[in-house]
């Protein structure tokens, strides 16, 4: 297979396969969670599940002061790389074209050098996060193969994307094809790994907020 | 090929940022010519230039004292820029289209010299001409 054929494959059948697995996986995973349902709470309510649930979806984004002090690195690094991922994935002009093509929606892009800077910062942050994960007592203990796999699948598209943009090391079609392939690997792994938190975080925060809100507790 | 040099000028802004580095290279080449007598050639076609950038280079170099024109498989234009030792050589084809353009840093571009082979051939031709009986008769 020539590099252009490789590129055509990842842009064509490869992307289609990955998208199908991603969409099907995410929908099935969400349904298998939601359909389980919860028992109706029979205790006399002190607050609203819905409003507290919705509020918590937003408020949980801001860390508690004390928690911030104790988990500073995790929170700061987490913020940086999530924002970095958001910018590089959703605000880079070529990516917006992809979304436009697939879902029909389009929005303004950030200037390329800014996205480029975000990519560098994000890559560095993710490397720091890996080192932290391997050195921190709790994280080393908690980490499973999946955690390292997910880390890898997160940083690879960034690195390959950076290389493809700057055309480092290999021919341009190969770099681009590898970049797209790494994203497809991410998409395939997404529904079956902790990547799912991108979707289930809404459910989880809602449930937490609802459980607390019902009791009149701020969460 | 009028009095002033005509360049293939297109409107545009400097985009590749290759102009300044190239002119610096010319400066270094000139220094080499002074110090070691070493000549240099820069092929302007080998450097990516945006529309208009080549023009900027040529305007910076300007026009000096020498302006020669060849007629060899189409015209060629050889000018010494306002900086002595920096020559601009433009080859055209028979249709007056530019086929190559060089900046040469030298005391005298080789192509202006009469070539040994051509001189030898010229000698033969002149000799043959002089053997022409009509000439001898005069």
């Amino acid at each position: 297979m020539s590099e252009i054929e490789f590129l055509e494959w990842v842009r064509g059948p490869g992307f289609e396969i990955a998208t199908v697995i991603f969409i099907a996986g995410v929908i099935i995973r969400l349904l298998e969670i939601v359909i389980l349902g919860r028992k109706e709470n029979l205790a006399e309510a002190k607050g609203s599940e819905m409003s507290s649930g919705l509020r918590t979806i937003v408020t949980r984004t801001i860390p508690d002061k004390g928690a911030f002090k104790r988990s500073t690195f995790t929170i700061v690094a987490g913020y940086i790389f999530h924002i970095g991922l958001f910018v590089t994935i959703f605000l880079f002009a070529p990516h917006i074209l992809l979304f436009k093509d697939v879902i029909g929606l389009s929005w303004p892009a950030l200037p390329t050098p800014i996205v480029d800077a975000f990519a560098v910062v994000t890559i560095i942050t993710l490397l720091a996060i890996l080192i932290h994960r391997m050195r921190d007592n709790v994280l080393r203990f908690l980490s499973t193969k999946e955690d390292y796999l997910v880390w890898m699948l997160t940083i690879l598209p960034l690195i390959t994307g950076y290389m493809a943009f700057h055309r480092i090391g290999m021919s341009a079609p190969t770099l681009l094809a590898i970049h797209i392939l790494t994203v497809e690997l991410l998409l395939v792994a997404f529904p079956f790994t902790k990547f799912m938190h991108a979707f289930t975080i809404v459910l989880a925060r809602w449930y937490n907020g609802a459980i607390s809100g019902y009791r009149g507790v701020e969460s | 090929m009028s009095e002033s040099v005509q360049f293939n000028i297109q409107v545009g802004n400097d985009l590749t940022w290759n102009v300044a580095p190239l002119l610096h290279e010319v400066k270094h080449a000139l220094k080499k010519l002074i110090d070691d007598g070493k000549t240099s050639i820069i092929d302007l076609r080998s450097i990516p230039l945006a529309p208009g950038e080549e023009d900027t280079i040529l305007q910076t170099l300007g026009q000096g004292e020498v302006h020669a024109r060849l007629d060899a498989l189409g015209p060629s234009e050889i000018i010494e820029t306002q900086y002595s030792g920096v020559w601009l050589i433009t080859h055209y084809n028979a249709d007056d289209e530019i086929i190559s353009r060089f900046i040469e840093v030298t005391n005298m571009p080789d192509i202006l010299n009469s070539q040994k082979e051509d001189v030898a051939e010229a000698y033969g031709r002149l000799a043959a001409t002089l053997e022409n009986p009509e000439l001898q008769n005069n």
Partner: protein
Amino acid sequence: MSATLDKGINALKEQVDSSVAAFFSSCVHCGMCADACLFYTETGDATVTPINKTEPLRRIWKSEYTLLGRLGKIFGLNKKVDDDLLAEWETLVYDNCTLCGRCSMVCPVGNDITLMIRKTREGMAKAGHAPEGLIGATKRSVTIGSPMGVKLPALQAQISHVEKDTGMKIPVDVVGAEYMLLLSSMEIMNFPEFIEAVAKIFDKAGATWTISSEAFEATNSGIQIGVSDIAAELVQRVVTAAEKLKVKTVISPECGHAYMAIRWDGPNLVGKPFTFKVRHILEVLDEFRQEGRLKLSGKETQKLTYHDPCQISRRGGVIDQPRNLINMFAEDFVEMPEAGKMNWCCGAGGGVSSNERADEVRLKVFQRKKDQLNEIKPDAIISACSNCRIHLEDGLEEYNMDIPLMSLTETLAEHLADD
């Protein structure tokens, strides 16, 4: 009959619902729950990381309720839940967790980890992996009526002491009283002043109340050990008594988990809404305050602080009421760092205090409270949970600190205006 692994596994299967599934799906192993847990901050032992405590439940969720887990089950690739695992997890789930709920507050993806640990206990207990101390307390609760083995005659003896001391009649089994007061064994045995305080306050407030001779125990070991069936049985006793006495409101006393058990879990355990209201004593007192039925005189001049019992504040939502009440008599009130919904647990809740095996770690993690107290150096600590109170006294003694503990209700009673 016996506890078996199968029963435990089945119980874990029963415990998974959409919230649990969403929580497990969302965990990114960020480790922030460890930093929120005093068992980790005070021991540095990574295994006590809250989310790790839920591992048995996670395995069941994964293999029974997820797409990949179902496939893994077919090919036998899933991690098993067996007696070895449960035995290993027993100390994590029971000794090293007070169900204080701090982890649920900091989890960035919003996991109610405490709920998950509570649910994990259901499986642990049914598989026979609950601590001996808790099993004993649970047995006593069911057979005797109190985890500490307090029987009705003991209560009656305390009541007659109080009646003698105060000259007031303590209402027992009064049909049609507005309030029915529950008591924790700890209050009956160690702090009978509480009964006296309630009697005085309710008298001044002009509220009718009663104690049921059939269901006076507020604590619920079934909740702590994590057996809903038993917890339901214990709740049902209260429900029956309350319905029999036709009271409007059942009052949960100064005890953390009792409030959780009767107020929030109760109706769900017995499977139907209560016909009466359930309020914490502090809620009732604050209502009295609002209605002007609570008049005090004199102030406490010493520097006071309030220890938030986890199940009442963070998990129960009773945060402002104690402060409103304290402000009625305190001149110098200081909050502990992170007071209120983020307050640090004393280290003895969630059944830890009934589990002798956890005594050492319970006192070790008290350092967290000790540090907090050292920061504000109060002259006395007010609390609204006798379990917290006992443990705070224990801990302070352990660390050679001399700070007296006060019950909020009792202190209020002391300051009642004579009018």
